[in-house]
Structures are given as structure tokens and as C-alpha cells.
């Protein structure tokens, strides 16, 4: 983690040189990385109401066997599709990358703004357009009941003749274009605009995580764009990419989708690695253990993430050699991931740990990510996966890593950086309550789904045999507890903005040694206009 001895004087000298945009233009026309970051966070919160609302409808439907209030099972499929697309593309990505990335890349590398501020703005507005389009797909044309994976033949013209799938396809196209532009902006900023003296090996780990994530976005999303284009022309212009009657192959869609989709899951979790590294270091009051190992673990996870895609497709009929390769390649990812887990533990070891809410969330993240990681190694084994494919075991696995571990990283970042973003402190007592309620809630919600999956309950069904009733009721109860936690978070957010005590520039003490803590709270409209100079050796090499 970089820099402990920045010459951080004079940062705010220019905070008042006037003619800042004001009123609605400030937000609609923004070219300011902090305002755009805030817009992304607001968009993620708005989208989360829809995405979480849909998941609550599903859990209430599944609380007991039989159909409760969902009459048309296609509608259940629409709910789960919209839930997946919204949570992935319009909650987790905008919050972790658009929100925290925009806010803190310039602040932490010591430059005044992003490389391409206008392009930054269109990235945000295109994401908003994507959200409008995906919402439209749920209400016009009967809804897309394809799952977020949009597999043909279910997604083709025969089974989804309405407008919905086309709206969903264009939503992903637009959100993807937004992400590619954002990735170009992030990489250019990090490569070209680091403060004097901040070498790559002095960058905070959050910056490393953003750099790796941006490369994954840049290289994975165009492949999705190609796949979506082919699906669109198959549906509307008579091409045969995924159409066996014309010599095409639905399995080809799965290859393209997962060639994008597997990097995509790392796009959602690598930013979390970055945030958790900052927070664990800050509240252990120690530099991160094994800084270089941590940085290059993310790089190698990103790299290997591009060559493991077919482990999502073990049941399509690969030969043994293909399965053997994808098993081994997938298991190899456990090595850099293990480096990260043990380095976080070693960072805490012997540290003077303060259990503030962000630290609780970071430790919660590590626990949840280990649980989801272990079931990931289980699923990477093709023979095991043949049995678990499309069961609730898979649901439990990816909700542990993505839904709750990635959400935990969002909570970690919100509590950690809220004082910097808003200038106010959250209520520590309420924050800790919110952590424990959520921790109990999500584990009661998702842990029993392992049992359901091992017992054979398939995913994507609105009704199920009575044998699965018990754990489903427990799981739905956990969903209600989690909802209470989520609502309490929104209360805490409102309470902080309204009543929070004024935050000092650095509320976290000596452990918080990255550049964002050298500027005032809230961070002034423009920061680092006098570039800070970094002179410290990278932490970790001199301790």
C-alpha cells in the first residue's frame, strides 16, 4: 500500500476557485469523478430496490411447496432473469467499479480527475439507459424468462417471440459499451496519471484491483457483444449461429457466453479484493502482508479467469480430455485465491485490530468468500458437477461468492469511505447491529440451499416436492432477516447524511495511510490539483 509519506500539503488550496457547476446541471452534465461516482452509487441503490425486491418475491413464493401467489411459472422465470441481470450489471458493477472506482482512483493515485471526464459521464448515462431497457424487458412483450445466461433455444424466436429478449439483449449491449468505455478510462488513468513517485509497485491494492478488473472488462465484454449480436440476428434476421436446423449450434452460445461470463464473475469479485485489502490493513494498523503477492495474485486470477470458461458447461458432452483440462485449470485458481485469503489473515496476525463496522464487514467477506470458494472447488470437479449442475448447490455457491461476498464488499466500502464521500460519520452502534443482522440473515438464507441442492432440488422452479419444504422455509426466513438488514442500512445511510457527526480528514487513524485520507472530508470538488509526491518505499518491503 502505497504511500505513507506523501507530501500532501496544499491539496485544498484550490478548493474554492469558483464557478463549480450547480443545480441540476452539476449532475446531468457532470465531468467530475466524485459526482459521477455518486451518480453510480445512487443508480446501484435504485436498481437494488428492484433486484432485491424480485428476489424477495421469489423467496416468498418458495417459502412453502405449491404456488403461493405466482400463477404463471413463466413470470417466475422473468423474476429470476431480471433479478440476475439487475444485480450483476446494475447493482454490483455500478457500485464497486463505477461508484468506488470513480471516487477513489483519482483520490488514491493522486491526480485531479479521470483521464476522459466526458467519456466517464457517458459511461454512467449509458448504464442508466441499460437499466431502463432491462426494466422495459420485464414489462413489455411478456418478459424474458431466459435466466441471465440467455441460452438458446429458450431465448430464440420460437420460445420467446415477444420484444422482451430483444430489449434484454440491447440492455446488455448498452451496459457493455458503457463498461468498455469505463475500462478504457480506468486503465488510461491508472497507467498515465499516477502521482510523481507512485510506481506500479507503490499503488494501493484497491488500484491494482481496479486495473485488473478494467482489463477483464475491456477484453471480455466485446465477446459478449459479439454473442448478443449473433443472438439478435438469429432472432430477427434469420441467421443460424445457434440454430441446428441451419447448421448452427446452441452450445456455441454457451462457449461465447461463458468466455465472457467467467471473467465477469471476477469483474464482480476482484474490486472486492481491493476494498477488503485496504480495510483489513487500515483496521489492523499494519501494511498488507505480502503486498506484491497480493497484487500479482489478482493479476493471475484475472489471467487464468479467461481460460476456465467451460467449467460452466460440464454437462454438454465434452470428451474426457476437455473436462480434465477445465477441471485442472479451474482448480489452479484456488492457488492465487489462497494467497489472498492467507495474506489477509497474516495481515491481521499480530495487528492491533479495531473492530469497526468496515472491519467486521471485511472479515465477514473473508468468511463468506471462503465458504463460496470451497464449494467452488467442489463444483470445479466435473464428475461432481454432473450431479450438482442446475441444483440449489450451485445457487448456494455463487450467492456466497457473488451475492453476499460482493455485497459485503459494497457494505465494507460504503462504511469505510462514507466519511470521505459525505463528510459525516455513520452511527457505529447501528452499523454493527446492521452487520450482525445481515450476517445471520444471509447465512440462514443461503447455507440451507447447499442441503437442498445436495438433496437434488433443481434451480429455476417456482414449485417443488414437499420433501424440500423444511429448508426452503428456513431459507425464506433468512431472506426476511436479510431484508431487515438491508432496510437498516438504508436507514443508517439516511441517518448519516442527515444527523452524522462531522468526519475529520482521516477518521481511521494511523492505519489509513492512502492518499484519499490526506484531503478534507467531504473531499472537495477538486482534489490533488497540486500533485502529491510519493517518496515511501512500498509497504511490505520495509517492514
Amino acid at each position: 500500500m502505497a504511500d505513507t509519506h506523501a507530501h500532501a500539503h496544499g491539496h485544498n488550496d484550490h478548493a474554492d476557485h469558483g464557478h463549480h457547476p450547480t443545480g441540476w446541471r452539476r449532475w446531468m452534465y457532470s465531468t467530475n469523478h466524485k459526482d459521477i461516482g455518486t451518480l453510480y452509487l445512487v443508480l446501484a441503490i435504485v436498481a437494488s430496490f428492484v433486484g432485491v425486491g424480485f428476489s424477495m418475491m421469489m423467496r416468498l413464493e418458495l417459502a412453502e411447496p405449491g404456488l403461493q401467489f405466482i400463477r404463471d411459472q413463466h413470470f417466475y422465470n422473468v423474476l429470476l432473469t431480471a433479478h440476475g441481470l439487475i444485480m450483476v450489471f446494475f447493482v454490483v458493477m455500478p457500485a464497486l467499479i463505477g461508484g468506488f472506482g470513480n471516487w477513489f482512483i483519482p483520490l488514491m493515485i493522486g491526480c485531479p480527475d479521470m483521464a476522459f471526464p466526458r467519456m466517464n459521464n457517458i459511461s454512467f448515462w449509458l448504464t442508466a439507459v441499460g437499466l431502463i431497457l432491462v426494466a422495459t424487458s420485464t414489462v413489455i412483450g411478456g418478459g424474458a424468462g431466459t435466466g441471465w445466461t440467455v441460452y438458446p433455444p429458450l431465448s430464440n424466436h420460437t420460445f420467446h417471440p415477444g420484444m422482451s429478449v430483444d430489449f434484454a439483449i440491447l440492455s446488455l449491449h448498452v451496459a457493455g459499451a458503457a463498461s468498455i468505455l469505463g475500462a478504457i478510462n480506468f486503465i488510461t488513468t491508472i497507467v498515465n496519471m499516477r502521482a510523481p513517485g507512485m510506481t506500479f509497485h507503490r499503488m494501493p491494492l484497491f488500484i491494482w484491483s481496479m486495473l485488473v478488473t478494467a482489463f477483464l472488462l475491456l477484453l471480455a465484454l466485446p465477446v459478449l457483444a459479439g454473442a448478443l449480436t449473433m443472438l439478435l440476428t438469429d432472432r430477427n434476421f434469420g441467421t443460424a449461429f445457434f440454430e441446428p436446423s441451419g447448421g448452427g449450434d446452441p452450445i456455441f452460445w454457451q462457449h461465447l457466453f461463458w468466455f465472457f461470463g467467467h471473467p465477469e464473475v471476477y469483474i464482480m469479485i476482484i474490486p472486492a479484493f481491493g476494498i477488503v485489502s485496504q480495510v483489513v490493513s487500515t483496521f489492523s494498523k499494519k501494511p498488507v502482508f505480502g503486498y506484491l503477492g497480493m497484487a500479482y495474485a489478482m493479476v493471475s486470477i484475472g489471467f487464468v479467469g479467461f481460460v476456465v470458461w467451460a467449467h460452466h458447461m460440464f454437462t454438454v458432452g465434452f470428451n474426457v480430455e476437455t473436462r480434465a483440462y477445465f477441471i485442472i485449470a479451474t482448480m489452479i485458481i484456488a492457488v492465487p485465491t489462497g494467497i489472498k485469503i492467507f495474506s489477509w489473515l497474516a495481515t491481521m496476525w499480530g495487528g492491533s485490530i479495531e473492530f469497526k463496522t468496515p472491519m467486521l464487514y471485511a472479515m465477514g467477506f473473508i468468511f463468506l468468500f471462503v465458504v463460496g470458494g470451497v464449494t467452488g472447488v467442489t463444483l470445479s470437479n466435473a464428475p461432481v458437477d454432473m450431479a450438482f449442475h442446475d441444483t440449489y448447490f450451485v445457487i448456494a455457491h455463487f450467492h456466497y461468492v457473488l451475492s453476499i461476498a460482493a455485497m459485503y464488499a459494497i457494505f465494507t466500502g460504503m462504511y469505510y469511505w462514507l466519511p470521505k464521500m459525505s463528510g459525516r460519520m455513520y452511527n457505529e452502534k447501528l452499523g454493527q447491529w446492521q452487520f450482525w443482522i445481515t450476517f445471520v440473515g444471509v447465512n440462514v438464507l443461503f447455507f440451507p440451499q447447499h442441503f437442498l441442492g445436495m438433496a437434488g432440488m433443481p434451480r429455476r422452479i417456482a414449485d417443488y416436492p414437499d420433501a424440500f419444504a423444511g429448508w426452503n422455509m428456513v431459507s425464506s426466513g433468512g431472506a426476511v432477516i436479510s431484508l431487515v438488514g438491508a432496510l437498516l442500512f438504508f436507514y443508517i445511510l439516511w441517518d448519516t447524511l442527515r444527523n452524522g457527526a462531522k468526519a475529520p480528514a482521516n477518521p481511521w487513524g494511523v492505519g489509513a495511510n492512502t492518499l484519499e485520507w490526506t484531503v478534507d472530508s467531504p473531499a472537495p470538488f477538486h482534489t490533488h490539483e497540486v500533485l502529491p509526491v510519493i517518496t515511501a518505499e512500498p509497504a511490505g518491503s520495509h517492514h
Partner: protein
Amino acid sequence: MATQAQKTHPYHLSEPSALPLFGSIAVLVTAVGAVVFMHTGFYLGLVAGFVLLILMFIAWWRLVISEANNGVDHTEVVKTGLRIGMLLFIASEVMFFFAFFWGWFHSSLPILNNVAGMWPNNDIEPMGASGIPMVNTLILLTSSVTVTVAHHALVEGDRKTATNWTGITAVLGVIFLIIQAYEYWHLVNHQFGLKDGIYPSTFYLATGFHGFHVLVGTTFLIVCYFRLRAGHFTPSAHIGFEAAAWYWHFVDVVWLFLYINVYWWGSSAFGHLKPLVQ
């Protein structure tokens, strides 16, 4: 934002702009217009979206050009950033074509194929490598040379030569597009249409997206031609030209892959389970 007199860093902070919001609304109109067009045939929404998008692009790049020419905003550091940005954009474009080449190989390689050992499917007569595609290959390769001649002239301060050779490159791009349009017209009428199965699907989308990129690259070169005439570029400051040249080389390389794999190998019997029916 600090005025230039106060500026204490080499970066370019843009003023607030309505263009991103305007452009995003244009994208929304285009997307909704496209869905409506595909389901009802009503095309005016789609056309309106495209018109708005083109207006946005024109306004946006006029703004960028004015910033490039004001002598203040585009410092050396900013120029490096623009170069990195263009390279990354081209990298993302490469991955877009990667998907279509994947489709091509997934369908055509016997070990993967799904077309009963026949390539092309359904006894389609494939597009051969000689004739039209050979001519187009020569045109694009020549255009890569002419754009390099222009670049060298520009670096050496010979603006007139640079202008002329940039114009010649753009003309070659236009000729390529005319010939490709003729090729498509001929194919549709005599050999295969878009709806005739997997070979036409991969053929038309891969070569069609390439053709669209030639159109974009040619437009970029035409803009550079007029900017050269207007004296916007100097031997040391010509990022716009550099980006156009890089983009042109990228389009050229994609074409070479298309020519070798789709036109030449795709029309030969080599590597397929069954000799072609000619």
C-alpha cells in the same frame, strides 16, 4: 475548474457537457427504435436514433478537435493518455471480431462441426479467394502503404504530400467498400443469402462488420484529410491522424485474417471432412 493561469498540473479537466446525456438519449431512442423495427417494421424510430447519434458524434468530435487546436489542453501527458485510450479501444475491437472468428471455426472445423461433415452447409457454393476478394486484399494492403507514406510525410513536415496520400488512402477505402457491395450483391443473387444457414451467417456477419469498420476508418481518414488541409496537424502534434492510421492498420489486419480463413481456407477442401461440392 482552474483557469489555465492557475493550472498546477498537466491534465485536461473537461468542462461540464450536455453531450453525454444527449448521446445516451440517442442510444435509448436507437435501441427502442431497433426493437420496434424488428417486430413491426416501423423504422422511423431507428432512423431518428441514428440521426441523433450521428449529431452527437459530430458535436463531440468537433469539441475534441477544438480542444486539440487551442494549444493548451492537449499537453504531452494528455496526448499519451489519448494514445493509450485508442490502443485500448482497438484491443476491445479485436475481441469483438474474436467472437465472430470463434463462430467461424466452431462451425467449420470438422472436430467441432455441427453440419454433418459438410462445409459449407447444404452444398452452398462458398465464396472463393480469387477475383474480388483478391482485388480487395491488394487495395487494403496498398492503402496501408499509402497511409504510412502520408504519416512519414507529416512527420517530416511535408503537409502537401501528407494531405494527398491521406486522400488517396480514403479513396482506396471507398473503392474497397464499393467492391464489397458489388460482391454482396453478386453473392446474394447467385450463391447464398443471409438466411441460408451457418456458413452465410458467419460469412456475412464477419465480413459485414469488417466492412462497417472500413466505413468508420474511411470516415476517420476523410476527417484527417480536411484537418490536414486546414493545418491542424504539425510534425509533433497529430494524435488524430495517428489514431486514424492505427485504426486503419487494425482494419487491415482483420481483413488479412478474414481473407486467409474465410475466403481462402473456407473455400478449399483442406481440413474438412468432405470435399466441397463445386
